């Protein structure tokens, strides 16, 4: 503590010199010692002190000189420069505030967005040597991500050569912790080789053994860090404890690391062995669907690996029905790509936007510093005349820029942290890894470096201008190069903001199209409730059916409820059943000879589904309540499926067998098309199977749709109450249909909002720079304006004269910006929805908006020029 205090004191005295008390005490100590010596030599105390003072010489003078030494040293030190800079900045508060804020906005937005993008694009995955990890599988119309099937997977595992290890998992399944305070969990089934392939181990305990990954082996599980904390109070002795999962005992053999994540970034509370018997899978076709990951052998590239598994793929392809083969492909790609798929593009766009933003901010700071240098030309000339070397002046200016950039950096980091917080809170769930984004050391360092480099750069530039005798005389002859540089900077800024604005405007149009498109259904006054029943109590379809039927009856009795329908999925997006077209047998027709025919979406629904969502049944009739008790099966097809399946025929009354085996369904009607591939995805033909009062039609998952005359929020609460009354262990998720739909636009909304924010901030900064430049020109030409006015120029003439300077800059900047944006727009075209990247309306809007803002920034100082009094202006010469 004392050492710290001494260190601090030394630092302070180094900055500001010693205090008066310090010097006094030091000198008086000396005199006291001399006095003692004199007394020892035989003098009286009074005489001794008098002699001591005399021999010392002037105490006052010495004290003065001690302090002067510090001041003199400071003149030559960085500290001195810094003090001088701070004093200078304090004298020009407007300049300081604007510059620091510009810096801070630039650095803050850069840091925040970089922190977000960094996680997505550059951060390494949390596995050992993650660059060697790949996702392996086949791509087929049935599933957008590459996958593998049980029967071929084990063949691959035996015969593959390019991978050090190949592993797989079977996805997330909900499971129940059936103990006191039952809990719904996400369980992931993985192979014993799963964690070793990723190169990670558990925090506590051990991984599964191959023996434990066999069917009928005693069940063992690894639990997540958060489950360990919340359920077991982070008790280290949890390993070996037996818990009850879906009513069966399972032994905890380990706890996963805090930062553990699945290769797909899905959430899992429990890892359990998939316990699949390879032998039974080899015989089965297709076997269990699974997702495979592999670690490349050293020196093997992805291309080589792809080529090496190609023969295995061909082998597998031979077992695929010939008509589908063309649509099945092999895919081996880096794990990172598998994780991030479409987020990558958005991340690059954001990164581009942020770089432009930083450039605008830096240009602004540069032009502000240049302006300040111009204003202080005379001061520099005087210092130079008094003997300051150019190096000395340059050092002074650099110090000043550094002071500004460091201050800007500090404020910028605060802004960055706040912005990041805002981003995270407004961001949709779909942005991967965003929840974990934080301002980290590297990002902060990046910001500091950026600010230091620009500080030094902009500090030196003005110092390079040699002061001359004219400036000493106080004439306003400012280097032409200075003004030229600022003009170029302003043009660059305007161009960059045009690019940003154009991007934002395209995104906005795209968002507008997205939200305004017809969904083919109504969302008004609809509340949805998604329920997933537990395996233990609802394992039999009969149990699930009973539950949902009871719930349906209860909901119908609620006040204000008009319609209750039960489905297992909902448009416009998210999960729904999928099958291939070729998998539907049509009565009286052979199966198609080639091709899968593409994907067909389908749902289980109760009769009122169509009236609840207001989907018109355009031909035939909707399902009726009495159909629910029929022993026959009924189906309704969408218009697009009918067009495809029965061109120029009446589909009503036809019979279909959707699974190639099993029951036949009678087509009773044709429903209008509804968006079902998300807001941006391609629409799929669709059919609806009637969910009858038969256990075979029911599963553990269902979504209830309730149309209410009351406020949705009230109805949501009532629905939850009813579910709890039936079974308080069943989790239910309610939301209004409009919330559901708007969630699909969250991501584009987020991107559009960010880009607009950048665009407007950029324009604002460019406007500030333009305003500053025109004001400066007005001041510089005050005398000229005075002369012109004295010679009879009207106010209009003067405004035109001054404004024309700005108009040229705006026109040049806008032109360059628009051309750049036209080329750059191709990069964003992939994320645009029904907007061409060359959309004229968007670009026109941008040009207009910019013209207005920049025009105002030009006109204000130009108008001020008219207030010049000719006499005053002339007298100044």
């Amino acid at each position, binding site marked *: 503590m004392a050492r710290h205090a001494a260190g601090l004191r030394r630092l302070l005295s180094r900055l500001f010199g010693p205090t008066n008390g310090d010097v006094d*005490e030091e*000198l008086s*100590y000396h005199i006291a010692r001399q006095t003692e010596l004199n007394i020892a030599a035989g003098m009286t105390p009074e005489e001794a002190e008098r002699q001591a003072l005399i021999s010392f010489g002037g105490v006052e003078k010495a004290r003065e000189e*001690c302090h002067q*030494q510090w001041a*003199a040293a400071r003149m030559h030190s960085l500290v001195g420069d810094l003090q001088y800079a701070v004093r200078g900045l304090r004298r020009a508060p407007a300049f300081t505030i604007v510059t620091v804020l510009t810096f801070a906005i630039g650095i803050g937005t850069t840091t925040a967005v970089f922190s977000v993008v960094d996680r997505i694009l550059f951060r390494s995955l949390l596995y050992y040597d993650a660059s060697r990890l790949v996702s392996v599988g086949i791509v087929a119309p049935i599933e957008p991500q590459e996958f593998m099937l049980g029967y071929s997977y084990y063949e691959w595992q035996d015969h593959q050569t390019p991978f050090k290890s190949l592993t797989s998992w079977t996805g997330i399944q909900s499971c129940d912790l059936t103990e006191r305070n039952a809990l719904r969990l996400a369980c992931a089934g993985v192979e014993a080789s799963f964690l070793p392939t990723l190169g990670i181990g558990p925090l506590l305990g051990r991984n599964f053994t191959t023996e434990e990954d066999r069917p009928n082996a005693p069940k063992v599980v690894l639990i997540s860090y958060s489950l360990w904390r919340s359920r077991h109070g982070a008790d280290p002795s949890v390993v070996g404890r037996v818990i009850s999962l879906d009513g069966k005992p399972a032994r905890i053999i380990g706890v996963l690391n805090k930062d553990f994540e699945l290769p797909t970034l899905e959430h899992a509370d429990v890892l359990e062995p998939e316990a699949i018997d390879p032998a039974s899978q080899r015989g089965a076709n297709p076997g269990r669907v699974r997702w495979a990951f592999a670690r490349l052998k050293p020196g093997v590239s992805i291309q080589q690996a792809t080529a090496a598994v190609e023969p295995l793929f061909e082998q597998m392809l031979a077992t695929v029905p010939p008509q589908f083969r063309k649509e099945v492909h092999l895919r081996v790609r880096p794990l990172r790509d598998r994780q991030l798929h479409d987020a990558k593009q958005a991340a690059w766009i954001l990164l581009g936007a942020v770089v432009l933003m930083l450039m605008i901010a830096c240009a602004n700071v540069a032009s502000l510093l240049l302006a300040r240098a111009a204003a202080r030309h005379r001061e520099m000339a005087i210092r130079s005349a008094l003997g300051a070397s150019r190096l000395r002046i340059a050092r002074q200016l650099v110090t000043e820029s550094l002071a500004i950039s460091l201050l800007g950096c500090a404020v910028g980091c605060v802004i960055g942290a706040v912005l990041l917080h805002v981003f995270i809170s407004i961001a949709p769930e779909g942005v991967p890894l965003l929840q974990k984004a934080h301002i980290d050391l590297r990002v902060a360092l990046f910001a500091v470096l950026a600010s230091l480099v620009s500080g030094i750069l902009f500090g030196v530039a003005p110092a390079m201008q040699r002061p001359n005798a004219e400036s000493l005389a106080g004439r306003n002859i400012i280097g032409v190069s200075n003004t030229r540089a600022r003009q170029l900077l302003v043009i660059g800024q305007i161009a960059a903001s045009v690019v940003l604005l154009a991007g934002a405007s395209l995104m906005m149009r795209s968002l507008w199209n997205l939200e305004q498109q017809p969904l083919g259904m109504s969302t008004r006054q609809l509340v949805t409730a998604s329920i997933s029943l537990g395996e233990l109590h609802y394992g039999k379809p009969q149990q699930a059916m009973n539950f949902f039927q009871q719930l349906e009856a209860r909901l119908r009795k609620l006040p204000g409820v008009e319609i209750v329908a039960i489905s297992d999925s909902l448009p416009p997006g998210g999960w729904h059943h999928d099958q291939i077209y070729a998998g539907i047998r049509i009565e009286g027709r052979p199966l198609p000879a080639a091709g899968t025919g593409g994907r067909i979406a389908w749902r289980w629904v109760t009769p009122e589904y169509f009236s609840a969502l207001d989907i018109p049944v355009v031909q035939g009739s909707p399902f009726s309540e009495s159909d629910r008790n029929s022993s026959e099966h009924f189906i309704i097809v969408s218009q697009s499926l009918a067009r495809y399946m029965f061109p120029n025929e009446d589909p009503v009354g036809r019979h279909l067998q959707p699974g190639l085996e099993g029951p036949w369904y009678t087509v009773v009607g044709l429903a209008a098309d509804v968006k079902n591939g998300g807001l941006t995805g391609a629409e799929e033909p669709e059919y609806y199977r009637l969910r009858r009062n038969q256990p075979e039609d029911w599963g553990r998952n269902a979504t209830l749709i309730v149309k209410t005359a009351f406020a949705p929020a009230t109805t949501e609460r009532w629905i939850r109450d009813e579910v709890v009354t039936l079974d308080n262990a069943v989790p239910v998720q309610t939301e209004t249909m409009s919330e559901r739909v708007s969630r699909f636009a969250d991501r584009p909304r987020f991107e559009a909002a960010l880009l607009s924010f950048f665009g407007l901030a950029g324009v604002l900064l460019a406007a500030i720079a333009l305003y500053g430049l025109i004001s400066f020109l007005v001041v510089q030409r005050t005398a000229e304006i005075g002369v012109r006015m004295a010679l009879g120029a009207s106010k209009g003439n003067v405004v035109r004269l001054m404004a024309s300077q700005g108009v040229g800059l705006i026109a040049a900047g806008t032109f360059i910006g628009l051309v750049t944006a036209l080329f750059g727009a191709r990069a964003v075209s992939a994320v645009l929805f029904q907007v061409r990247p060359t959309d004229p309306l968007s670009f026109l809007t941008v040009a207009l908006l910019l013209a207005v803002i920049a025009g105002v920034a030009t006109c204000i100082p130009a108008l001020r020029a008219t207030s010049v009094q000719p006499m005053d202006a002339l007298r100044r010469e």
Partner: protein
Amino acid sequence: MPSESTELLQGTLDLLILKTLALQPMHGWGIAQRIQQVSQELLQVGQGSLYPALHRLEAKGWITSDWGPSENNRRAKFYSLTRQGRKQLGAELKNWKRIASAIALVIEEG
């Protein structure tokens, strides 16, 4: 006090202070005493210039100071050489020797 004390040559005071402090940290009084003693009372350090010199050297970062108890248990300001000061001492010593030998050459020539 001997009357035959010599005025210090401009700039040599810094050298003497640095050299003295190279032995051990010392307070101003001690430095003055030590220079007198070692020079056999030939060199008189004027206190009026000693303290400004100490502060100048400290401001330049060649020496640093700390308050501590002195021999007679009073609070005194002790100066010590910094790493930079040690380097400076080497440079100044070399410089001094060069000047001294140059002067000697000129004088002995005459």
